[in-house]
């Protein structure tokens, strides 16, 4: 029954793509329904977990490949982590599906869209409830596939087709490291080869004991962890494999909300939480994780400040917030990281859906063409404001609580980490304030009749706003398994809260002062920051570096291989052997003079030679 959690959306996908293509509305409802079923099941499990916590974690599994020493199974692991994440995925997912029913109404590929969405939901739930590395990898790739299909949904646009290809290939590069890490961990789980496993529970048992016993070195764990980290970097768009995320905004906005904000990109962080038992073994590993997270957070925030496309701002914001989560993991705070993941899921989805409503209304994504929408679209404005404040982390939104945890971790770790987090917080509130001001405040720049969105689009916004505000009071860290005495409140906590609130307010006010009052056609920051602005806006030229690599290094190398192949395999082996054979024949032709006596001479010589050889070889 609980296997329906993964099977239900998959069945939905199969039904839509094979049979029900023609009936658009039905496809939409089937898709939504196929995600609501898992949601209900997970809620049930959640209730069970609350009333009877000792019966968890539970595992059910079915063998998939079981031959000659290799046993892979497909299983469902129910524990606090997976159930909460599952609630996020299916809950927020269902809301976004409902939103899509209104948003994609006029699109020709409506059924195709919902089929892909169902596929994505199935694969994402597969990652969440996976109980072993191989299953995670399988659904990891499938989620990447769904992302590819959805980013390239409008495939007749060159930009969308390129973006989808880029997303998949960058993810593949991360997966290269990921699968190597899985293989290595499988090997390390038992170097003698008797009882190797890819099961999370099995690895959690065997690897720490092996390290303690000295059977495997912590250097090996460092390497394995780094390889697994490759997959995380690819999926969660951290530096340096982040380049696909801004381009992924080519997909329809619900896709950006679901996949590239709330769930898929969070899968990397989720994996870090799931496999945290590996990362705690090595100090250097945690430091590297933290550095990557922190660096991504702050660079993404700087890039977000200078973008003029609303979705791109949100994309970099996602990258930055994911950086926070990864940083939290690296600072040995997996619960804090997951807490932020869950709250971020709510308010980021809210912000993206809100931007979807805006785009739907004004038909542009350029911030400098919007303005004054607060008068015409009040509900959207209010919900977007709630989302903004939650993202900035202002008390008492959910974002405040989760961000405080991370700030506290950073403060407890080092001055550098604290400055990074605080700086990113400032930048976050600055660019979000900038977005809000340019979009909703000030004079209306696009003179067209703008009206509030229909209820089907507003309903998810309202629900998500509710969660964005109140999720901080649900006691999520306790639900994630933190014991009560570890909670981080206290005078130090309050002091840090005051500092961060001050920083946030400073960011919001300064952005309002710069952007919220009069019309700008061009970003005033571009004059203020000068070359720094170009650096941020062009995303530190990293895309250019990758393009350079592909066009000037990889392709010429491939051409080189092709040319050497021409010479070796084709010319040398085939043509030239042919020519050699032909020339040998040409020379041998001279023997056939047509003169009978020559033939007789050759015959006689042959006989003599053969006779001699026979005598020598057989020693007669």
């Amino acid at each position, binding site marked *: 029954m609980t296997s329906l959690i993964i099977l239900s959306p998959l069945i939905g996908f199969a039904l839509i793509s094979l049979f029900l293509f023609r009936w658009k509305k039905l496809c939409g409802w089937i898709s939504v329904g196929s995600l609501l079923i898992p949601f209900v099941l997970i809620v049930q499990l959640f209730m069970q977990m609350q009333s009877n916590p000792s019966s968890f974690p539970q595992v059910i599994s079915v063998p998939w490949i079981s031959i000659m020493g290799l046993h892979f199974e497909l299983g469902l692991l129910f524990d606090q982590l997976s159930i909460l994440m599952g609630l996020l995925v299916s809950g927020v997912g269902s809301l976004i599906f409902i939103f899509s029913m209104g948003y994609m109404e006029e699109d020709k590929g409506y059924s195709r869209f919902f089929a892909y969405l169902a596929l994505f939901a199935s694969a994402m739930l597969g990652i969440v409830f996976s109980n072993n590395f191989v299953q995670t990898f399988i659904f990891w790739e499938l989620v990447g596939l769904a992302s590819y299909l959805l980013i390239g949904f409008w495939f007749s646009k060159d930009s969308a087709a390129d973006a989808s290809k880029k997303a998949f290939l960058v993810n593949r590069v991360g997966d290269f490291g990921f699968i190597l890490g899985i293989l290595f961990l499988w090997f390390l789980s038992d170097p003698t080869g008797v009882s190797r496993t890819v099961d999370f529970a099995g690895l959690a048992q065997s690897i720490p004991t092996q390290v303690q016993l000295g059977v495997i070195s912590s250097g090996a764990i460092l390497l394995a962890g780094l390889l697994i980290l490759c997959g995380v970097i690819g999926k969660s768009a951290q530096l340096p494999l982040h380049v696909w995320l801004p381009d992924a905004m080519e997909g329809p906005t619900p896709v950006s909300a679901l996949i590239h904000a709330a769930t898929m990109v969070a899968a990397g962080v989720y994996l870090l939480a799931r496999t945290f038992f590996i990362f705690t073994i090595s100090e250097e590993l945690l430091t590297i994780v933290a550095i990557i997270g922190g660096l991504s957070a702050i660079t993404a925030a700087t890039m977000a400040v200078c973008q003029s496309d609303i979705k791109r701002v949100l994309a970099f914001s996602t990258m930055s917030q994911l950086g926070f989560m990864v940083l939290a993991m690296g600072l040995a705070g997996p619960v804090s990281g997951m807490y932020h993941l869950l709250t971020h899921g709510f308010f980021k989805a809210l912000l993206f859906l809100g931007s979807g409503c805006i785009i739907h209304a004004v038909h542009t994504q350029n911030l400098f063409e919007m303005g004054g929408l607060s008068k015409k679209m009040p509900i959207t404005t209010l919900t977007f404001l709630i989302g903004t404040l939650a993202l900035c982390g202002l008390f008492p939104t959910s974002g405040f609580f989760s961000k405080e945890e991370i700030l506290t971790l950073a403060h407890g770790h080092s001055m550098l980490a604290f400055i990074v987090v605080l700086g990113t917080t400032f930048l976050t509130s600055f660019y979000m304030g900038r977005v809000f001001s340019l979009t909703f405040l000030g004079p209306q720049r696009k003179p067209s009749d703008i009206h509030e969105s229909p209820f089907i689009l507003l309903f998810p916004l309202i629900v998500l706003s509710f969660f964005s505000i109140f999720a901080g009071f649900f006691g999520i860290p306790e639900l994630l398994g933190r014991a009560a005495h570890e909670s981080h409140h206290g005078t130090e906590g309050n002091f840090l809260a005051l500092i961060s609130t001050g920083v946030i307010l400073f960011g919001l006010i300064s952005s309002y002062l710069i952007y919220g009052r009069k019309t700008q056609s061009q970003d005033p920051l571009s004059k203020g920051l000068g070359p720094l602005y170009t650096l941020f806006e062009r995303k530190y030229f990293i895309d250019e570096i990758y393009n350079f690599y592909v066009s000037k290094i990889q392709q010429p190398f491939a051409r080189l291989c092709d040319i050497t192949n021409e010479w070796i395999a084709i010319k040398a082996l085939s043509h030239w052997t042919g020519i050699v054979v032909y020339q040998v024949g040409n020379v041998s*032709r001279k023997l*056939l*003079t*047509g*003169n*009978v*006596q020559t033939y*007789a*001479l050759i015959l*006689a010589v042959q006989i003599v030679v053969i006779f001699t050889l026979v005598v020598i070889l057989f020693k007669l």
Partner: protein
Amino acid sequence: MIPLSHYLTVAFVLFAIGLIGIFTRKNAILVLLSIELLFNAVNLSFVVFSQAHGNLEGQIVTLFSMAIAAGEVAIGLAICILLFRTQKTIDVTDFTDLKQ
């Protein structure tokens, strides 16, 4: 008694003369003549070996060989005559139709 090797040497010399004749003579009839020399050399060896082994097998083969040589000469000369009729020459080096 005359040792075996003496006879074989004679036969060998005859054979060699015959071979050289085949390779070097230009007149077709002289080539045929050289082939006859080869036959003679071989017949001599057979008879000699028959004497050495003390049985008649070699001499029987010699008789066969002489009969076959006669037949072969007849055909060879017939070919020479036909060649002369069509090509107006029996110089062996003139027949090069098989040249590549």
